[in-house]
């Protein structure tokens, strides 16, 4: 039986609580002057790397480990065309890439660069059958290994899946991280909003899809969390050094939006969000049609249980659509889209498993 509510004791706690809060608030205020300077000093990418290949705006980074790679098959990270790829190597202890480098993988990252108006005519064909083919060919020449493992994050995962289906002879293993594949679900607000969106008019008028538009759309997915809860949480914890560092690093990346080439945006919205052609094996990429059944390499699909951007319902069908026999799903419940990459739980639970899975298949 619960004890009776003691009103006097309850009220007596308030003066102490107010005094404690005042003291902490004073500590927070002293932090304000240095915040701007600290936010400007945030590093974009933490692991040592060198640029090994360049083409137009694209750069391929090779990550340098302390020892020579133990696994022969190179691993290529393919990031989305939205935002910058350093989320995969955000900071020490929260870097997906560092996990793989330390596990002995010869690790590369494709940085697509920042598109300008001149790139508005680039299509998925250019990225998948052009740039990615060239990158994989370059790695084959550099390493002497015929096939590489490909890890795609978010939109980069969708592109990686298309690449693996069109060029199965170049992919040894495929890992998709929160990659949207099935766009039929209306769980994500993005799917609801884009259903009747006139993307032709939009791209014809704007050229590239503006970074500000994308930023606003992502913020609007969770208005209460982004515009009310986040500032409050920041104020409450800004006196904690670790929190402040994590917050500034993550926010720097979140605000670092880039435009998406107009034609790619048009194809993504029209063929995927509106017609869901990928799951029907009818997705056109240049003169080719993507058939996911052509993917016969080992596949691992990693997704988050509380992802607002790419709900697990959008990634889950992938394993049933491919022709592979070696398939694995890794679901991190309670995690969000970004948490899947940089969250402390993901670092402990997801990445060691993913490294182990890939190591067994990279000899």
């Amino acid at each position, binding site marked *: 039986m619960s004890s009776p*509510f003691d009103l006097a004791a*309850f009220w007596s*706690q*308030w003066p102490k*609580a107010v005094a*404690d*809060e005042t003291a902490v608030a004073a500590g927070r205020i002293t932090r304000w002057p240095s915040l701007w300077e600290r936010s400007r000093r945030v*590093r*974009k*990418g933490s*692991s*040592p*790397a*060198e*640029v*090994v*290949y*360049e*083409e*137009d705006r*694209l750069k391929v980074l090779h990550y340098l480990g302390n020892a020579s790679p133990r696994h022969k098959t190179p691993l290529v990270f393919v990031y989305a065309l939205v935002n910058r790829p350093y989320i995969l190597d955000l900071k020490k202890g929260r870097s997906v890439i560092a996990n793989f480098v330390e596990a002995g993988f010869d690790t590369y990252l494709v940085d697509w660069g920042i598109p300008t*108006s001149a790139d508005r*005519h*680039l*299509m998925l*064909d*250019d*990225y998948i*059958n*052009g*740039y990615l083919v*060239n990158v994989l*060919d*370059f790695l084959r020449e*550099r390493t002497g290994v015929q096939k590489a493992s490909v890890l795609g994050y978010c939109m980069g995962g969708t592109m990686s899946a298309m690449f693996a289906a*069109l*060029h199965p*002879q170049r992919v040894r293993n495929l890992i998709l991280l929160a990659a949207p594949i099935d766009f039929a679900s209306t769980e994500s*607000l993005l799917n*609801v*909003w884009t259903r*009747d*969106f*006139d993307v032709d008019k*939009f791209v*014809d*008028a*704007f050229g590239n899809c503006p970074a500000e538009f994308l930023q606003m759309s992502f913020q*609007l997915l969770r*208005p*209460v*969390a982004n515009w*009310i809860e986040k500032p*409050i949480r920041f104020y409450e914890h800004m006196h904690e050094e670790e929190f402040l560092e994590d917050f500034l690093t993550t926010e720097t990346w979140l605000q670092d939006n880039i435009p998406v080439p107009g034609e790619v945006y048009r194809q993504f919205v029209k063929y995927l969000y509106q017609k869901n052609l990928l799951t029907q094996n009818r997705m*056109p990429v*240049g*003169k*080719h*049609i993507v058939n996911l059944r*052509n993917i016969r390499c080992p596949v691992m699909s990693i997704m988050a249980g509380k992802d607002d951007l790419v709900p697990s319902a959008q990634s889950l069908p992938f394993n049933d659509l491919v022709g592979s026999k070696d398939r694995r799903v890794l679901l991190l419940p309670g995690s969000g889209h970004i948490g899947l990459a940089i969250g402390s739980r993901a670092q402990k639970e997801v990445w060691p498993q993913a490294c182990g899975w890939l190591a067994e298949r990279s000899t």
Partner: protein
Amino acid sequence: MNETTSFDKAAQDVAAFQKMCLESLAKSFQAAFKFSPDSAPPEILREVRAGIFQALTESWDQFMRSPQFLESLRQWMDNAVTFRTMTNEFLGRLRNEVQAPSRNDIDTVMLAVRHMEKRLLDRLDEVSAQILKANGTSPARPPSAPGAKRSGSKAQRRRGQPAKTESEIS
């Protein structure tokens, strides 16, 4: 008649927003009184606040899926596109007047280049296929979809260069 219809529509929009606000408020109040009286005062406030935010999040999610919100979004996008188109046309005319290349001119040149590239790549594909056929080997690239159109690829078959300078990311 039209005025009545637009008035009805506006009234429906307002009613939907009002419903969302009232529901948010009701849920927030319910959440606010769910705290445990044994908790320390700051904890009580945090519990209340978390409940209110949860209620607000659910209400906003529902509202942002409502036909009224989607209609407003569509109108807002239409206006943004119209404004941008007008700006483009104005700037295009201005540049033409001062004999400078406008976005339209650049697009026309780009399209011409891409069409030329497409024709060349198609021809190259045919030549490669003939060479492979003569050598008795199969093509390395995936087969084309029947009747599919080539988009003309900027990066295809144009290899980049290995970087000459190695720079460490800072």
